[in-house]
């Protein structure tokens, strides 16, 4: 084609500019604040002396406990989501007749698109000391007296597993859907049992979807604010609530900024570390599998 052509990213420039002004610049500003300090009761931040002191302050024992708590809820919640979603996604994509799959997907979508806060309030009602669950459990004789799970770490764990479960089911469904029945039948015809087919054909082929689901759940879960705020109380605090309270109630923007930066760093580092561990754990298996294929040839 001849004639004048605009430079390549031209059409993307408005979006790039918008994100630079309203995403990159504000985040850099928070990074800058995190090296400052709170000068007095009435001022929120000052930057005339720069130091790493706010980071040290953000890691003192009280706050550190909350970060540790967040990491615990993040890991336990992601693993629970994976364990709960796996059989459901497998069932939906393999066992259910094709014409019902769309309907079931839509049903998974409904809670996901219900307002996050509203579904969490639903759990607050269910978990209330004298609520539905308490009545049901005490009528079967599992508990005696009021249910005291609300405003604890367990309630937060239940809440985050609930809130992020659809984000695990959907990519797993897509992944299993891609592993065709022919693949599984071929594996069976070659003499593999059902367990061997699951672990040596289905799961390896679905691995990209499993990884996507884990990331989709883990990252927003670590930064969760609403679940911990509504179900957590003092015992189930998470880092997101801590950051917010520095900006809203304590009015210490420098410390809040340091915490926000730490939160992002913890999320990225832990995700990278988990990826590395999983990669190292899978490495020997992938070699042996290749060897088997080579021998089969």
């Amino acid at each position, binding site marked *: *084609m001849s004639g004048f*052509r*605009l430079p*390549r990213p*031209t*059409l*993307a420039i408005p*979006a790039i500019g*918008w*994100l630079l002004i*309203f*995403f990159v610049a*504000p*985040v850099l500003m*928070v990074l800058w604040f995190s090296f400052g300090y709170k000068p007095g009761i009435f001022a929120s931040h000052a930057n005339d002396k720069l130091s790493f002191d706010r980071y040290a302050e953000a890691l003192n024992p009280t706050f550190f406990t909350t970060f540790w708590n967040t990491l615990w809820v993040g890991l336990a919640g992601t693993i629970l989501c994976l364990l*709960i979603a796996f*059989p*459901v996604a497998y*069932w939906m994509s393999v*066992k259910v007749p094709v014409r019902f799959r769309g309907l079931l*997907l839509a*049903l998974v*979508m*409904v*809670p*996901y*698109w*219900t*307002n996050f*806060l*509203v*579904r969490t*309030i639903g*759990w*607050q*009602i269910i978990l209330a000391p004298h609520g539905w669950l308490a009545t049901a459990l005490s009528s079967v004789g599992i508990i005696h007296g009021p249910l005291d799970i609300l405003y604890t770490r367990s309630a937060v764990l239940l809440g985050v597993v*609930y809130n992020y479960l659809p984000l695990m089911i*959907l*990519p797993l*469904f897509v992944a299993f*859907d*891609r592993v065709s029945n022919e693949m599984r039948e071929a594996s069976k015809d070659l003499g593999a*049992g*059902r367990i061997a087919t699951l672990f040596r054909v289905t799961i390896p082929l679905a691995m990209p979807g499993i990884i996507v689901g884990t990331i989709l759940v883990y*990252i*927003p879960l*670590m*930064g*969760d*604010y*609403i679940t911990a*705020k509504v179900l957590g109380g003092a015992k189930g605090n998470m880092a*997101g609530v801590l*950051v*917010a309270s520095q900006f809203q109630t304590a009015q210490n923007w420098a410390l*809040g*900024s340091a915490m*926000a930066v730490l*939160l*992002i760093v913890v999320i990225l580092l832990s995700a990278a570390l988990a990826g590395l561990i999983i990669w190292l754990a899978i490495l020997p298996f992938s070699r042996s599998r290749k060897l088997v294929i080579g021998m089969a040839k």
Partner: protein
Amino acid sequence: MTSTNSKPRRQFKLTEASLGVWSVIVFIFLFAPIIVIFVYSFNSGRLLAAWDGFGFDGYQAMLEKTAVTSSVWVSLRAGVFSALLATLLGTLAGVAMARRPGKWVAWFSVLLLFVAITPEIVDAVSLLPWVVFLGQDLGLGIFNDGIVRLVVGQSLFSTAVVTYIVRSRLVGLNENLEEASADLYAPPARTFWKITLPLAMPAVLAGGLLSFTLGLDNTIVASFVQVSGTTPWPVYVLSSVRTGLRPDIASMSVVMLVLTLGALALVAVVLKKSGDSASQIARTMAG
């Protein structure tokens, strides 16, 4: 496996049945709090969590309380404007990524990735001082406007979502038509309007509607950047968690859920008409 024929088959049925039972339990789990909210929206009592009796008092109260109706109106306006903005920015960026690839795409993808993975609470705490800085220190009065602040806050993630959806649709279609149009001496702008945009249209509409529902749901960023007087619906609910939830919150939530599901059903229809399979639709809608 054993040599007898019946044993594996029975085992087969057992795993199949337990998978089904587990899935049904999970679906009940997924719907439990929504059913609770639906049931309690008919609570005629004064407090949401204390069941008093069946009645439509909540639905009546939600229409009478100006705090409720005006917050919903704020949410709808902010949702529409942020969806329009995100659709405009995201469509152009998605087209550029798919049709004018180069080294810049890698950099832009990293930027979009950061927008997507940054926790909303971090967006919120960084956007608040920033709009205060723009509005008060730089004297750009427009950033003191409540709706403008909400639209800015909601547009970031939505722009990334629209870009991704539009890009993945166009990458899946080859450039034959656009090349033919250029060969027939159509100027680039006309090719864009007459060929590229219609090709991308299902993705543009789906992205726009998704942005709208994302905007309606935006709670965290909105609760930080909001200006009193233009409180959006989710922020009103969040403040009620502290001061005391009443049944009309549940009633309005039911209405908003119906509205959101209507918009999403429309997305599914649009995508289906353009030939996506169930699993492609799921991928698009999960963002």
